[in-house]
């Protein structure tokens, strides 16, 4: 066999050409996918790196900024907690039962995702405003929804609970009903079967949904703006500063909010991943 340099080269080139040909689909899809990854990554990265750490630190020391971010974090946490209490049972019910109109209910749950959030806020105002039934009832026990923290929570729940319900429902659907049945034959009551089998097995879906709901709550703007522009959550503070003072003042707050959300989001994702492996 003759192996001069030239034949080896053409051999390599041909092998490379074949390698490409065999992977045309993979390579095309990879390139198209890369565009969208960069589209998400570049604006975020540019924003974070265009603000100097010094400015960020100064911004963090502002009382108004800190209280806005803190308010955002904890109202979103309360919203998620309420979502878990009412949303997980609903998710389980929908995963286990079929009934006439089920598709309608499932569609209804998705509505908050598709309507403009400012409209959602107005809709909530029509129920929880002081002149309306629910608003009056809560007013009697001293809870206000307009221009008050509970209003923020309500708005957050309304627009973000679908993420939790859908994810938890999917989690429960993946749990084989027969696991619950076996648990029953082994002496578990329906409650015990739920808490010792269904819930732990669906935990990934529920946890993932809760993280999504919490993150979506923090980023909510439109619905909260209608119900409660003061006390001010972080996204509204960003908007206020943009309107009143311009981009330079809004940018550090926005950056700070993104960094905090990213840190928490990554931490939770890591936790969920650990849980998945063990």
């Amino acid at each position: 066999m003759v192996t001069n340099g030239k034949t080896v080269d053409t051999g390599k080139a041909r092998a490379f050409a074949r390698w490409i040909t065999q992977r045309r689909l993979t390579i095309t899809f990879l390139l198209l996918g890369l565009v969208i990854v960069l589209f998400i990554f570049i604006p975020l990265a540019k924003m974070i790196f265009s603000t100097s750490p010094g400015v960020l630190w100064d911004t963090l020391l502002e009382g108004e900024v800190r209280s806005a971010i803190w308010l955002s974090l904890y109202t979103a946490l309360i919203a998620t907690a309420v979502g878990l209490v009412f949303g997980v049972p609903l998710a389980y019910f929908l995963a286990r039962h079929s009934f006439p109109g089920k598709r309608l209910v499932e569609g209804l749950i998705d509505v908050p995702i598709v309507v403009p959030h400012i409209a959602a806020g107005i809709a909530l105002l029509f129920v929880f405003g002081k002149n309306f039934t629910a608003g009056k009832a809560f007013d009697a026990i001293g809870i206000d929804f307009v221009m008050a923290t509970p209003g923020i929570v309500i708005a957050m729940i309304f627009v973000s609970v679908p993420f939790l319900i859908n994810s938890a429902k999917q989690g429960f659907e993946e749990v084989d009903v027969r696991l619950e049945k076996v648990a029953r034959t082994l002496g578990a009551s329906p409650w015990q079967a739920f808490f010792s089998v269904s819930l732990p097995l669906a935990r990934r879906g529920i946890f993932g949904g809760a993280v999504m709901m919490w993150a979506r709550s923090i980023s909510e703007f439109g619905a909260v703006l209608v119900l409660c522009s003061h006390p001010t959550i972080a996204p509204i503070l960003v908007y206020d500063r943009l309107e009143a003072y311009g981009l330079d003042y809004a940018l550090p707050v926005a950056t700070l909010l993104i960094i905090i959300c990213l840190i928490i989001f990554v931490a939770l994702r890591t936790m969920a991943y650990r849980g998945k492996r063990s």
Partner: protein
Amino acid sequence: MIETKKLTVDLGDFVLEQADLSVEKGEYFIILGPTGAGKTVLLEAIAGLHPIKSGEIWIDGADITCLEPEKRGIGFVYQDYVLFSHLSVKENILFGLKRRRRPRDEANRTLDWLVELLGIGHLLDRRPDTLSGGECQKVSLARALSTNPEVVLLDEPLSALDPQQREGVQKELLSIQRRLGQTFIHVTHDFEEAIALGDRIAVLGDGRILQTGTSEEIFRQPNSEFVARFAMLRNIFTGEVGDDGSGGAMIDIDGIKLEVVTDMRGHLHASIRPEDILVSREMFVSSARNSLRGVISHIDDRGATINLTVSTPVDFVCMVTRRSFEELGLSEGEEAYLTFKASAVHIF
């Protein structure tokens, strides 16, 4: 003893009607039926896991029809074992004992006993998703036995295993049931499994229980097409399997001795496919180990093929093509020779 009285269950597409079963204490009872006959649902109904339309379920003289599943004392083993994937093997087995609030030392004694019974000591700390099919099966059985149930229901427990494993696990199931003396109700669509395991068999089809009896009764006088078709497609015999004196094995079926290939010994079943039997007018020499002389007692013309029943005096059904049948010029009452290989006889 467990009984169902006129048990009727709605299966959506059809109804399982008026099922009357009566299973003795300590019996290995088989429910045999084709896929989609509602066997799983019948078991689930007995365990209280599937709503029933009407009828009653009794265990040891007590009506348990309205009792909740956790209070029935019925163990369940599903086809694909459904182990709790978030728990270790040990936690899976202890699940029922914990729910029933058994004291820890008693629970541990039960665990040790089951581990010994099933030989699963090395698996205790493993997760279910790391186990093989056979191992899952043992854990699932251990879990079902842990609460010492009156009755163990097994839904196609062997069908998810590969054929090599199946025979061993089948033997083990039977030996465990015999040792514990517990009532087993085992659902299957596999005839040979039913014959090998069942003290008695109930045949389920067309949404009804068609026949109940010992395997002999069911296969000698089948009253359902499902069983009849199967019984006709196999020659099924019962006999004593022993050594043939020269290192091989033989089965004695009512005095007819056949050479077979198997390591099993004792009172067993044999089957030979009708198409594996060679029919000739005269005896001939070949490598096939079994050669019998008999008389053609019945000719069943099925078009392209013909089924001959040959009495030796044990009846063998043999399948020949129309052409061979005509060339041999066979007719009822005439003598014929049957030849088949030792390996054509399936022992189970």
